[in-house]
């Protein structure tokens, strides 16, 4: 039971981060490594605020906004300074390591005895004693669902449409007299905001900050996105955002099972990587970055040759 609860808790926390990665990886087609830095940044700022006994509810918007700011930086590096997408993320990720240390003040910051969104007077009064072991998972469920519904709503606004268009076909965005660079920056801001928000909830569930928490965030998130989107591809009534959330829970369950079968917690990163590789091979997503486009170009060329031959 404890295992199931912990899988659900962590699965849904990481789902918020996976929703962010869904925006960058699936919608924008942008391999954004910034997340390895923006996730622990959410943890760091939350740990700091909680340790200073600030209102835990305040940590949520603060983490989101700080993450969005970081996303904007990555976007500016990529769009204005014309640095390649992967490198822009790596630059930000590296810089954020120091930033996170500065925010937290040290490499490890425990918040065991402070008030969090899961453990405060209000929650303890509302939730009856018998259900107290479920209160964390319930609060996480509520937060994740709120994030999901806001994202669903956003993706169906005009701004959301143009965001989807920029990943699908940049030329169309330019043709609509819209600056595609601006749209990419908006997308990165939302994505990293969500990743940092996920870190914020994670900090309060784990009750400590550790500088190494961010390593592998990208891999976990991508694995969740790919599991979710390829597993539920056929089910059209299910929103993609829901698929990603379920994907994240499935992923966490796989890792938990691996540990249950004798792997130690030191093997965690290896399991993460191996599982991701396995999912990539099964999901056939290896060439996402260069999918479709060359194929279409070749087709168009071949057809053109055929036509000119006819004339």
């Amino acid at each position, binding site marked *: 039971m404890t295992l199931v609860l912990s899988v659900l808790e962590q699965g849904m926390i990481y789902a918020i981060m996976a929703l962010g990665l869904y925006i960058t990886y699936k919608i924008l087609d942008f391999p954004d490594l910034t997340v390895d830095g923006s996730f622990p940044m959410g943890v760091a700022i939350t740990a700091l605020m909680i340790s200073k006994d600030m209102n835990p509810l305040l940590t949520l918007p603060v983490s989101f906004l700080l993450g969005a700011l970081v996303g904007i930086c990555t976007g500016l590096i990529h769009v204005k300074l014309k640095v390649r997408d992967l490198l822009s993320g790596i630059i930000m990720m590296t810089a954020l390591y120091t930033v996170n240390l500065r925010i937290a003040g040290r490499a490890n910051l425990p918040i065991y005895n402070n008030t969090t969104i899961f453990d405060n007077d209000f929650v303890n009064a509302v939730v009856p004693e018998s259900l107290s072991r479920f209160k964390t998972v319930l609060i996480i469920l509520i937060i994740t669902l709120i994030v999901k519904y806001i994202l669903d709503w*956003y993706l*169906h*606004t*005009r*701004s*959301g*449409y*143009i965001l*989807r*268009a920029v990943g*699908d*076909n940049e*030329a*169309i*965005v*330019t*043709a*609509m*007299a*819209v*600056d*595609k660079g601006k749209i990419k920056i908006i997308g990165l801001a939302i994505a990293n905001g969500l990743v940092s928000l996920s870190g914020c909830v994670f900090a309060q569930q784990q009750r400590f900050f550790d500088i190494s928490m961010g390593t592998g965030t990208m891999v976990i998130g991508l694995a969740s996105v790919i599991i979710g989107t390829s597993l539920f591809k056929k089910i059209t009534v299910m929103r993609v955002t829901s698929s990603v959330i379920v994907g994240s829970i499935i992923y966490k369950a796989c890792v938990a099972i691996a540990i249950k079968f004798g792997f130690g917690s030191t093997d965690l990163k290896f399991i993460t990587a191996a599982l991701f590789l396995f999912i990539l091979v099964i999901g056939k997503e290896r060439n996402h970055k260069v999918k*479709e*486009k060359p194929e*279409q*170009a070749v087709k*168009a060329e071949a*057809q*053109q040759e055929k*036509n*000119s031959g*006819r*004339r």
Partner: protein
Amino acid sequence: MLELRNVSKYYNAGTVNEMCLFRNFNLSIEDGEFISVVGSNGSGKTSMLNIICGSIEVDSGSIWLQDSEITNVKEYKRLEKIGRVFQNPAMGTCPNMTILENMSIADNKGRPYNLGRGISKKRNAHYQSLLSQLNLGLEDKLQVKVGSLSGGQRQALALLMSTMTKIDFLILDEHTAALDPKTAEIIMELTDKLVTEKKLTTIMVTHNLRYAVEYGNRLIMMHEGKAILDKKGKERDSLKVDDVLDIFNDISIESGN
């Protein structure tokens, strides 16, 4: 009115591979003109379109639109009043979005892409009536992803999308070249209809000499960055495919093609 004044463009400037594409190239396009541009590969047709749209920068010279200079105006800003259809049908639409979503995006051009709802149900009938004039059955497929349509269907949709909002210029970059002859014919007829209906000033690059002669009211032949043939009015109307082909053959032999 659109003008290119003394435009020069070099590729690989300053290296042994330096290639001059345009040297002091001038062109002025009056409102209401429908120009067909023909010429061999590498003659500068597509580069000219790219210069007009701002996809590539010029090395010297200036570009003027309705008496204001747009040489340094960014591509996306210029495209506010320009619609462009590319040779590759995939360039003009979003493959992973539905026809309805694609049309909603195009419908909103010129207005802010804000937090309003992406699709307004009230516009559906309007979209359907636009699509039904294509006679491709797309009006019943609003919820179908554009990626699953054929090249011809996509190109028809791209053409429709680029002319949905009020634009001054329509730029067609070999937009029938990737299509089979029958579909190309349909797209050309649709183009002509849209241009006449909306009174669009149009520049059409094509390799099909018959289309170049049949459609439009001005014909330009490009060769090595110059307009070696520029006919309009009566002169243009008396032009026949064979005449154009003869000139085309002459310049091709000259340059060894």
